[in-house]
């Protein structure tokens, strides 16, 4: 049931693509080098996880969070990763909020159609609720951009 680390390699195609994008055109990578990098990447995941988990355990938390991983990067002397990681985290959260807003806007449109026959009070209440949530999403996005998150 539990998978062993050896069984869990990262997909070759993805590893290859990351390597190719990192290196200049015209550079090739031997199969053995690619395999070794893929293996190293798996070891990296395990090492980073273990390190991050230590921070979580020290804080008496059962759930590993992003902060633990960032602390682990520093511990592992990969400070150069911190800035791009923080940006990626911010981008991902903004993307999710953006998708959230889209869902809300769609819901708003759908509700407007369905409650046409209902009273104005119901319509404006529903609309009002959605506006509040939309505004919250916008403000959250602003806060995240300001780095206050």
């Amino acid at each position, binding site marked *: 049931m*539990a*998978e*062993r*680390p050896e069984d*869990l390699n*990262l*997909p*070759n*195609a*993805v590893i290859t*693509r*990351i*390597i190719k994008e*990192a*290196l200049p055109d*015209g*550079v*090739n*990578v*031997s199969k053995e*080098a690619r395999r*070794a*990098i893929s293996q*190293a*990447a*798996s*070891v*990296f*995941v*395990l*090492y*980073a*996880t*273990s390190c991050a988990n230590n921070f979580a*355990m020290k804080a008496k938390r059962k*759930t590993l*969070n*992003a902060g633990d*991983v960032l602390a682990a990067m520093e511990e592992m*002397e*990969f400070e150069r*990763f911190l800035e*791009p*990681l923080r*940006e*990626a*985290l911010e*981008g991902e*959260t*903004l*993307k*999710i*909020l953006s*998708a*959230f*807003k*889209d*869902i809300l806007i769609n819901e708003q449109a759908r509700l407007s159609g369905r409650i046409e026959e209902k009273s104005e009070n119901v319509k404006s209440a529903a609309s009002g609720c959605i506006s509040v949530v939309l505004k919250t999403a916008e403000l*959250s996005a602003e806060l995240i951009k300001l780095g206050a*998150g």
Partner: protein
Amino acid sequence: MAATVTTSLVTATEHDPDRCESEEETRGAEAEDSGQQQQTGPVTVSHSRLSKLPLARIKALMKTDPDVALASQESVFIIAKATELFVEMIAKDALVYAQQGKRKTLQRKDLDNAIEAIDEFAFLEGTLD
């Protein structure tokens, strides 16, 4: 915080083929290679690059550690992204040795040289086949 938003919204956007929380990665790397554009709807936030490593696989790797109880979605994402940065870094550092050897093909020995020479890669010593 953002973590709660993340969890509740991942289920909402399950239809998105690029959300790797489900077992998407069982479709294989072929799906990732088909050049599908990433769209979550009319509004997309553009930033440099999304993590391409399958989050389900990363999470499974993390869980092989017996001391790890739970990992937030964010933490899995961040580890995936960090791993991507690591692959870039080690490839570039190994390239230096290939170039020293006047080669245009990165070989296993270039990796070994990089691991031996660079402090940050010390954790890899003795771990590769």
